[in-house]
Structure formats: structure tokens, C-alpha cells
């Protein structure tokens, strides 16, 4: 009889636990089943960060770890030095952007300021990191199926 009342007043059954565990397990399965996607993600990440700092590309590492109720991406990206000039801000529709203030020259010499030589118009403005990651690697909570993303 107690079981009956327990069932009446039980807030959630084991199915919600099952749903949550499945979500995580499938995400984990999909990540490990798409090594090429993970590789692309890593390269994209390094490329974006390289706009701001010099990185040791060979020593970069991206892994996924389960932490309780979520999967976290852990990126270990050794930084060698700052770039001397930050990249130009994206062009605004109202007119050409104001020329950026030259940063204090505590790091490096103008010779290493690669970014300043790049024409700002040649590269499209990089979207926020999170959005880009989602588009390429499909690591958002929505579940695709365990197939490698083509291309």
C-alpha cells in the first residue's frame, strides 16, 4: 500500500534520470565518434586564439571531460607571447573604422606584429567563439546521431 502512495506523490520517476544519463552518454559517444569534427574544432580554436596571442600549436590539446551533469571541453593552449597589435575591429556600416591606437610597445618589436600587416578587409570578422564552435562541431545539447559530420 505504501508503494501506491509513494507513486502518487513521487515527483519524478527513474525515467528522468534515464533521460539525463542518455543525453550525456550519447553526446559523449558522438564526440568520440567524430574525431575529424573534434580535429576541425581544435584547429578553428587555435586559429581564433592565434589572432590575439602567439600559441605553441604543436603543444595545443583539446579534450572533453565529463563533469557531473555536463560535458566540458578542456582546451590547453600554451601561449608564447602577446601579439603587438590587436586585430582591427570589424568594419561598421556607417564608415571606415577609426585607426586603432598603437599599443604600448612592451612586447615584441614591430617586426613581429604580424596582425598589423594583414589587411583588415581580407578576413571577415570572426564570430563569437561559442557560436562558431556550435556550427562546426555540433557539440550543443541537441543530439545529432553518432555519424561523422561530412566535410
Amino acid at each position, binding site marked *: 500500500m505504501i508503494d501506491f502512495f509513494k507513486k502518487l506523490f513521487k515527483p519524478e520517476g527513474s*525515467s528522468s534520470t534515464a533521460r539525463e544519463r*542518455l543525453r550525456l552518454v550519447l553526446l559523449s559517444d558522438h564526440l568520440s565518434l567524430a574525431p575529424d569534427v573534434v580535429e576541425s574544432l581544435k584547429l578553428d580554436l587555435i586559429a581564433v586564439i592565434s589572432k590575439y596571442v602567439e600559441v605553441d600549436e604543436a603543444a595545443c590539446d583539446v579534450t572533453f571531460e565529463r563533469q557531473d551533469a555536463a560535458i566540458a571541453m578542456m582546451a590547453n593552449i600554451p601561449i608564447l607571447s602577446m601579439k603587438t597589435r590587436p586585430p582591427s575591429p570589424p568594419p561598421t556600416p556607417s564608415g571606415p573604422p577609426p585607426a586603432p591606437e598603437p599599443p604600448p610597445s612592451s612586447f615584441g618589436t614591430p617586426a613581429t606584429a604580424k596582425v598589423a600587416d594583414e589587411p583588415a578587409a581580407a578576413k571577415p570578422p570572426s564570430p563569437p567563439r561559442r557560436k562558431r564552435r556550435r556550427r562546426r562541431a555540433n557539440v550543443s545539447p541537441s543530439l545529432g*546521431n553518432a555519424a561523422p559530420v561530412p566535410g
Partner: protein
Amino acid sequence: MSARRIVLTSGKGGVGKTTTTANLGAALAQRGHRVVLVDADIGLRNLDLVLGLEKRIVFDLVEVVEGRCQLRQALIKDKRFETLAILPAAQTRDKTAVSELQFAKVIEDLAETCDYVLIDCPAGIEHGFRNAIAGAAEAIVVTTPEVSAIRDADRVIGKLRERGLAFRIVVNRIRPEMVRSGDMLSVDDVSEILGGELLGIIPDDEEIIDTTNRGEPVVLTPDSRLAVIYEKIARRLEGEVVPLTVLHAPGFFSKLFGQRKAG
């Protein structure tokens, strides 16, 4: 006009592929289609047993592939239906006895002679699975609403997507009372998690055990609720839009007064 070639697969064993193949095939045959069921589980055949045809096996799929008999010699016509036949697997060989190309060829040949070829896929994602899907143009993924089964179905769906095989999902052995009490994933949960369209929902029902024991497809029992459900699945497969059966757990009062709401 070539037949539709459909593989029934799951990843996880024991979720009801063979039972579904047998009963769906029988339901399609009852509706007038010419149906051939192919047992791709070489070494552990069971389609024959489920249909009660085990004593009539003379030749099997491996012997067809090896040219030791004609395809039509290996086919066993089920006498209870006008238009149902099965191609049994070999019992004493293993799945490497047949290659993907060879299997696909057999299915192609069969497809010239009927309207539906249903391929009963073995459990797993290895050689046997690859053979079974090699012959197919579409798939039915059978799963139960349990964590392990869904995980395996997900893996299989990934493989199907790799091959560009369209699929629909059959959720088997659902227990509405457990879904209601929150102790079992619902059909919507399953469909959402796997990202596929539902073809059918089959409730857990002891009737299946009994009919399998007797080697009789459940569609032969006239007022069986499972027969109605398989018939609906057959109609959906044909392309008809059939509303999904609303499954009710027998309620407290109906149980008390001896009635059971039809599933």
C-alpha cells in the same frame, strides 16, 4: 517493378527485430502484398522458428550464394498466407560465409519477384549487420524504451546515416503504466532522443511469448490487439497516415471490474 527492400535493425539484441519482421511481413501479406522475409542472422537463425517453419527448411541463404541451389528452391512458402515466403539463414555457418555484394545480389534477385523484401538483421554492427544493410534501400530501427537499447539504436542510426539509408523507428515493449509512473521513457522521449520519425509503437504483451512458442504470427489471432497494431504499421509502411494507437494502462477501476481498455 522492383520490391521495396527494408532492413529491420536495432544494434541491441532481443528488442524484437525478428518478431517484428515476422509479424509485419505477415500483416503485409494479409493485405495482399507479395512478401519475402530474409533471415540475415547466419549461425543463429530464428526467423524460421518464430514462424513455425523450422521443419520445412531444405536449403538456406548460404547455399543459394554458393550456387548449390536455386533461389526459389530455398524459399519456403508459408501456407497460412497466400503471398508470404521466407529465405532462411544457415545455422551451421557464420556471418563471414557471405559477402556484402553476394547478399545484396540475393536481395536484388528476390526484389524482382515480390513487393516487399524484409531483411531480419542480426544484433550488432559487424559483418552480419553490414551484409543486411547492403541489400536494403530503407530501414526500420526497432528499439525498446530502455537506456541500453536506445544507446545501441543511436549507434546504428549513425551507421545508417553514413550509408544514406532512410529509417523510421518502431518502439517495442512499451509499458504504459510504467511510462505514466515515470519509470519508463515515453515514445516521444525515444523519438526525440534518436531524432527519427515513428513508424509504430508496440506494447509489451505476453501474447507474443505464447504465439512465438507456437510458431504462429500474432496477426493470425483475430481479436488480438497486437494484430491490430501490426496491421496499422503495415498501413503506415504503405504510405497511409494512420494515427498512432493511444495505449492505456488498464486503469484501477477497469481492472477491478474486469475490463481492459484496448490498446
